[in-house]
């Protein structure tokens, strides 16, 4: 009986989400609202994927934003400099990003803890340096302008106001299904085991480095696609995607939303993107607000906004068996 209710609840929420996804682009017709919606959905993809490696796997991975940025640059360079037809550049971007992610994480994960954070941070800076040094191809600090529109049989997505909105939604939904599936699979459990008790997990035969490298590679796929969409949608690829402030914004989405939940960062991405945009007139002060929000969340709500959800007793009972992220440790104990 109880199980039926759980299933009904799940089906109901899926229906609601799909309905909202279908209707939202038709309701939010203003140019500003549409733009904000597309950006927040793309950020939601990036943040929720980052959560797989940072929250579930507990890897100090700060290269995630670089995957997004490299994705956007591969799309721009392939189409503009080498005339690669659109859509093919998406495949190219995934291949390049997965290769870079795999290579760098295989090297970085020879290290432990803080060193992983430092090397992956350095990778992001390396990208900026490469863009500045290879001006002929990358456009340097200005970036590349004029990335062609995605088109389906002559239909250009940019010509129709809803098209990129729907495209971004499709990417978010597919990516979320994939991430949830991964996180709850045998593979995901092995990541959590490595995060919480590495020595034991390794002793039980889980190959630590391989699982973590695979997690980073998996999470880089939707992220690179989000980067491509970003470039095609905005028609530019700019070095700003590697900036410290975007890294922090995305990081705050993961943390404020709730590390180790996948859904939390999605909600936070939408709230924070809309929120920081809504407070536009505050200028730099809104970044200070976000900073305070990060610290307060870590201090008083280590499980993030999503953990408020689990304070509902019925849900908490149902979820008692799940293992929260280390950042949520205090909330659960």
């Amino acid at each position, binding site marked *: 009986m109880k199980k039926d209710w759980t299933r009904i609840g799940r089906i109901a929420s899926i229906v609601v989400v799909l309905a909202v996804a279908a209707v939202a682009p038709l309701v939010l017709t203003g140019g500003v609202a549409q733009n904000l919606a597309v950006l927040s959905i793309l950020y939601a993809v990036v943040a929720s994927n980052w959560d797989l490696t940072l929250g579930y796997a*507990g890897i*100090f991975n700060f290269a995630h934003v670089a995957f997004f940025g490299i994705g956007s640059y591969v799309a721009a360079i392939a189409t503009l400099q080498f005339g690669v037809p659109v859509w093919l550049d998406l495949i190219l971007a995934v291949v390049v990003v997965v290769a870079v992610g795999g290579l760098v994480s295989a*090297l*970085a994960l*020879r*290290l*432990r*803890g*803080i*060193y992983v*954070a*430092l*090397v992956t*941070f*350095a*990778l992001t*800076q*390396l990208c*900026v*340096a*490469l863009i*500045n*040094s290879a001006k002929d191809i990358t456009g340097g600090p200005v970036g590349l302008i004029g990335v062609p529109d995605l088109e389906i049989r002559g239909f250009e997505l940019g010509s129709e106001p809803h098209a990129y909105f729907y495209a971004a939604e499709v990417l978010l939904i597919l990516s979320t299904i994939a991430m949830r599936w991964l996180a709850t699979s045998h593979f995901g459990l092995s990541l959590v085991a490595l995060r919480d008790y590495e020595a034991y997990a390794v002793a039980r035969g889980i190959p630590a480095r391989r699982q973590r490298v695979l997690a980073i590679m998996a999470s880089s796929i939707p992220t690179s696609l989000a980067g491509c969409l970003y470039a095609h949608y905005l028609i530019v690829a700019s070095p700003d995607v590697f900036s*410290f*402030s975007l890294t*922090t914004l995305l*990081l*705050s989405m993961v*943390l404020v939303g709730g590390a180790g939940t996948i859904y939390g960062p999605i909600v936070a991405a939408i709230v924070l993107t809309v929120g920081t945009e809504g407070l536009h007139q505050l*200028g*730099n*002060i809104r*970044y*200070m607000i*976000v*900073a*305070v929000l*990060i*610290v307060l969340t*870590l*201090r008083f709500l*280590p499980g993030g906004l999503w953990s408020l959800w689990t304070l509902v007793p019925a849900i908490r009972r149902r979820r008692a068996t799940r293992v929260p992220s*280390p*950042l949520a*440790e*205090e909330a659960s104990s």
Partner: protein
Amino acid sequence: MGAIIVSGLVSGALYALVAAGLSLIWGSLGVFNFAHGVLLMTGAYAAWWISSPDGLGLGLGIGIVGALAFMVVLGLVVYLLLVRPWIGKANAELAVIMTTIAGSIFLQNLILEIFGGRYKTIDQVVTGTVAIGGTTIQAQNLLVIILAPVLLIAMWLFLTRNRTGLAIRAVAQNQDAAQLFGIGVERIYIATFSVSAVLAGVAGILLGGLFNISPDMGTDPLLRAFVVVVFGGLGSLPGTILGAYAIGMIEAFSSYYIGIYWTPVVLFVVLIGVLVVRPTGLMGRPT
């Protein structure tokens, strides 16, 4: 050639001051302070505001002393707000990365709000040029080259001779034993943060005399310090200092022979090379 070496020594000296502060905190608290670059920037702004006629106009001497005193307080505040609540928790390492990143965003934007984004200049501590063996050196560069090792030696003496300095190392090595010696760990943490913040402030003031000061002036030195501490190994002061000078030199030679834009690439390649050979850094200890 002389100019390249001078430039390498100057960078190395500045990186050593920055990275030594990071290494000190890592050694005794086991956390990494991502706000260190912003502390450097804030130190430069404090010195500028106190000394410049556009600020209080009290002159450079008072500016430097005042800025360093301010750094002591700022180190305390950073520790109390961004580090202390998480010390001893299982997730301290990751949580403090996040909180100090947040702290650096906060401070950087605060400075931007107060002083605006336009470049400012601090007076040089010493002006003019000096010629040594056919190479003409800016006096301020020479000051950096000499002052940094003096400060680092002073720090080494502090850590090996002074009661508080010894206690900082003891807390880093064995917290229980340190407590049983009667060392108040909390006070030592505060002392460590303040010393580290002062080192950042000194680097900021020196850097501010060489270049302009701006709200993002701390970012590049911090990123170089990342490379330095991975290269030399965190928590080992000699390793950190050696790493800093090595990185400074590599950077100087690479800028000259390969080009300034490719230098970060060279540094990253060097870094990856070191990691492949020695995952704990050149001088680091395996944990």
